[in-house]
């Protein structure tokens, strides 16, 4: 198996080089057969990388501890789904996983577009394979996942198989960790497709916005996976790290946020290009930057350049990434500069109160946010380079800059979609915004009366409900028209409305998710944290909750030993739940961890519906010094659930926007069909 994997990887690298050369030479010498063979080589590379990944999975599932990667990331007693997840838990495996997903994306993009857009294929193939080739270099020659353990003996080195593996890092033994890396990586690799097509369109001077239409769905899918990946990462941190929060401005978290910010900016500003032929250079810059930040994110996560809670790996891949990133940066800047004449804007800004201008501000703010996050993340490296001292900045820096940015973005989320293109009249402003503004203000006043005094929190509540108000009005207005015409009920009319313009209404649903997300963030202002050392029978009182310690049980599985505190939670005399925070000691890795207990549990929607604003978060953080009393941390984290809910709504909205819009009035003769460009973008 290990030999099969190794040789597949090596062969994949060979085919990858061939694909690049065949695509470029086939294009320059106008040899269609050679070009065609380059596209087939992409499929071959994909097949081989998939085989290699499959081999590593089999080695993990079979407990083949001769393989160094298996020995250091798995053990016999590890549950089977974690053995599979061990595939992307270490550096070697996760880089192979990157290649595997990248290859699948590349092969799909090539086979979908090769007939419809043959002129874009040569450079797109060459670019996709260059990126994949870089990762295959790492897989083959730098961090090979199939390396075997060997022992020096008097008779020379001998292959050696330890009786059991060192085990998976306990922090990674969590369900969110099984799906978080694949989602994040799908997001990262997904942006390679729009990147490659944009570059190819620029090099070949392809007319119009064709590359945007080809890659629109790819960009949205990549964006969606990135969103899911980031939120699952937050969920993992929340449920595993035990410090009561889900986002700590850790370098690795920031690394995943950076391409999300530029990607979001891109998704908005392409509409300017589709609708008005503006911002052509800017869109190129954004998609290039997004992809480079994806590579940069992988690099930060995997290289251990910056010390971080989850930079699990430290290794020699840093220089390779630096060279590759510099190469990409030079290439993209050169192509952009060389084709600058081709990207002239067709229109100019007409008014400050227009859709165009709201998009410009949206982009400005997202980019400022991205820059501020990047600056803070790289501050230790920059200060060391400039002043010779290593200085880091912490959460206060990030919060200070990012909270106002977030509020401004939320404001734009509300106003932007309702501004007309070119210019908006004062009357239409009044008509569109009076009610949502009143609605937002009303909710904020209610929150104030209930004791919320934090300025940022009140602002967020006001803006979030303002956004929700504008979205509700848009749905209501559209549905009212359809209801009258089609004689449908309200629900039916809303569905019909959404189906007629999925991109616009899907976008609104995403904005609604964003508003929910921000409502979730507000909870941070109202959390409490208490710590107590307790014996069975003791009580802890926090806010109006009463925690009664029932006892501490011991438990043991093949994989770990656990001690579990049983704690009854009361509110106003009635029992809400029994919560069981745990401490575990993992046998293979000889490491202790805490297993946080969170209520209401995500798998219990009824409890969530009845208690939508509370998250009770208990940590069994250890025994007291005399080893008699349990140290229990109690966190009350209001509104955290809304963060996850907002994420689900955002994904739902993206899925809606991915469905092709249905032309209006089915069954009746269609009216004059609009040209393709407009049909694509009747949307927001």
């Amino acid at each position, binding site marked *: 198996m290990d030999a099969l994997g190794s040789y597949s990887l090596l062969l994949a690298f060979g085919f990858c080089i061939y694909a690049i050369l065949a695509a470029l030479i086939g294009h320059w010498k106008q040899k269609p057969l050679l070009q065609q063979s380059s596209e087939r080589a992409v499929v071959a590379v994909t097949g081989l990388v998939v085989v290699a990944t499959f081999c590593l999975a089999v080695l993990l599932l079979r407990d083949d*501890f001769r393989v160094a990667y298996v020995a250091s990331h798995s053990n016999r007693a590890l549950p089977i789904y974690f053995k599979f997840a061990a595939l992307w838990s270490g550096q070697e495996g996760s880089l192979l996983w990157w290649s595997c997903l990248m290859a699948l994306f590349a092969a799909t993009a090539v086979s979908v577009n090769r007939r419809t857009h043959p002129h874009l294929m040569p450079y797109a193939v060459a670019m996709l394979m260059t990126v994949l080739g870089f990762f295959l270099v790492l897989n083959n020659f730098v961090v090979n996942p199939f390396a075997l353990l060997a022992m020096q003996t008097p008779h020379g080195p001998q292959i050696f198989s330890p009786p059991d593996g060192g085990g998976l890092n306990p922090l990674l033994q969590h369900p969110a960790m099984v799906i978080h890396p694949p989602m994040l990586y799908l997001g990262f690799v997904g942006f390679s497709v729009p990147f490659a097509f944009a570059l190819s369109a620029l090099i070949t001077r392809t007319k119009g916005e064709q590359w945007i239409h080809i890659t629109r769905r790819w960009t949205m899918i990549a964006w969606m996976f990135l969103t899911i990946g980031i939120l699952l990462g937050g969920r993992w941190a929340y449920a595993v790290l035990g410090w009561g929060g889900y986002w700590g401005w850790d370098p690795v978290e920031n690394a995943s946020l950076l391409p999300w910010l530029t990607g979001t900016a891109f998704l908005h500003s392409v509409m300017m290009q589709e609708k008005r032929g503006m911002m052509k250079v800017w869109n190129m810059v954004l998609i290039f930057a997004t992809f480079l930040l994806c590579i940069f994110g992988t690099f930060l996560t995997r290289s251990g350049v910056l010390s971080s809670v989850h930079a699990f790996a430290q290794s020699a891949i840093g220089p390779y990434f630096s060279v590759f990133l510099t190469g990409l940066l030079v290439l993209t800047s050169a192509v952009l500069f060389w084709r600058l004449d081709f990207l002239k804007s067709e229109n100019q800004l007409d008014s400050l109160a227009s859709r165009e201008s709201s998009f410009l501000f949206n982009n400005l703010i997202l980019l400022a946010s991205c820059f501020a996050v990047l600056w803070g993340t790289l501050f230790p490296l920059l200060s060391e380079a400039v002043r010779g001292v290593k200085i880091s900045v912490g959460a206060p*820096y990030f919060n200070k*800059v990012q909270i106002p940015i977030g509020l401004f973005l939320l404001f734009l989320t509300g106003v932007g979609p309702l501004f007309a293109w070119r210019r908006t009249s004062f009357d239409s402003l009044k008509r569109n915004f009076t009610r949502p503004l009143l609605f937002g203000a009303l909710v904020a006043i209610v929150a104030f009366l209930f004791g919320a005094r934090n300025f940022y929190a009140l602002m967020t509540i006001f803006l979030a409900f303002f956004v929700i108000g504008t979205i509700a009005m848009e749905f209501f207005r559209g549905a009212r028209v359809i209801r009258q015409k089609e004689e449908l009920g309200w629900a039916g009319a809303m569905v019909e409305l959404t189906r007629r313009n999925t991109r616009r209404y899907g976008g609104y649903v995403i904005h609604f998710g964003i508003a929910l997300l921000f409502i979730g963030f507000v909870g941070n202002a109202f959390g409490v944290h208490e710590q107590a050392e307790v014996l069975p029978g003791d009580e802890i009182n926090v806010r109006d909750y009463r925690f009664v310690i029932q006892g501490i049980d011991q438990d043991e599985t093949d994989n770990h030993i656990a001690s579990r505190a049983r704690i009854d939670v009361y509110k106003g005399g009635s029992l809400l739940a029994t919560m069981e925070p745990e401490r575990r000691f993992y046998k293979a890795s000889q490491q202790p961890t805490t297993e946080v207990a969170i209520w209401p549990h995500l798998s219990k929607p009824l409890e969530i519906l009845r208690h939508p604003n509370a998250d009770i978060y208990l940590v069994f953080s250890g025994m007291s010094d005399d080893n008699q009393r349990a140290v229990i941390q109690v966190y009350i984290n209001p509104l955290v659930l809304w963060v996850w809910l907002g994420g689900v709504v955002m994904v739902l909205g993206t899925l809606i926007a991915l469905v092709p819009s249905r032309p209006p009035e089915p069954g009746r003769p269609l009216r004059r069909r609009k040209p393709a460009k407009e049909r694509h973008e009747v949307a927001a």
Partner: protein
Amino acid sequence: MRTKNLKFIGSAVIILGVLAWLGVSGVQESKTYYVTIPELYAKGDAAYDMRLRVAGDVTPGSIRREQGKVYFQLHQEKQTLDVVYVGRDPLPDTFVDNAQAIVTGRYTPERQFVAQQVQAKCASKYEALPPGAKPEQKPSSSY
């Protein structure tokens, strides 16, 4: 047309200016100097005025818990540093004898480092070694 652009550029400059100002003040508030234990001592009295982040190995047997505080000693390059942890968050599970720890806080004239935050890595650097692994067992390529 020009005035529209100027309006936009004007507002953009104001927004970016405010953000830059927030950024600079945020950096001032939270900047933390990474120093080694010898560098900390070399700073003399200047060390009392800055937020510091110091890394070292936890001296075995030095961890002592008293009245909600945790006392321990870090060592690095034969120099030692006495630390008291006063933060409210629980110490990480990886914080044990010989662990590599990073403490963030201030150094006081009582020759004690008051840490608000402690991060720790197991001596194995997260990558658990196979049991009984010896230094001479090096992974080698399979070809």
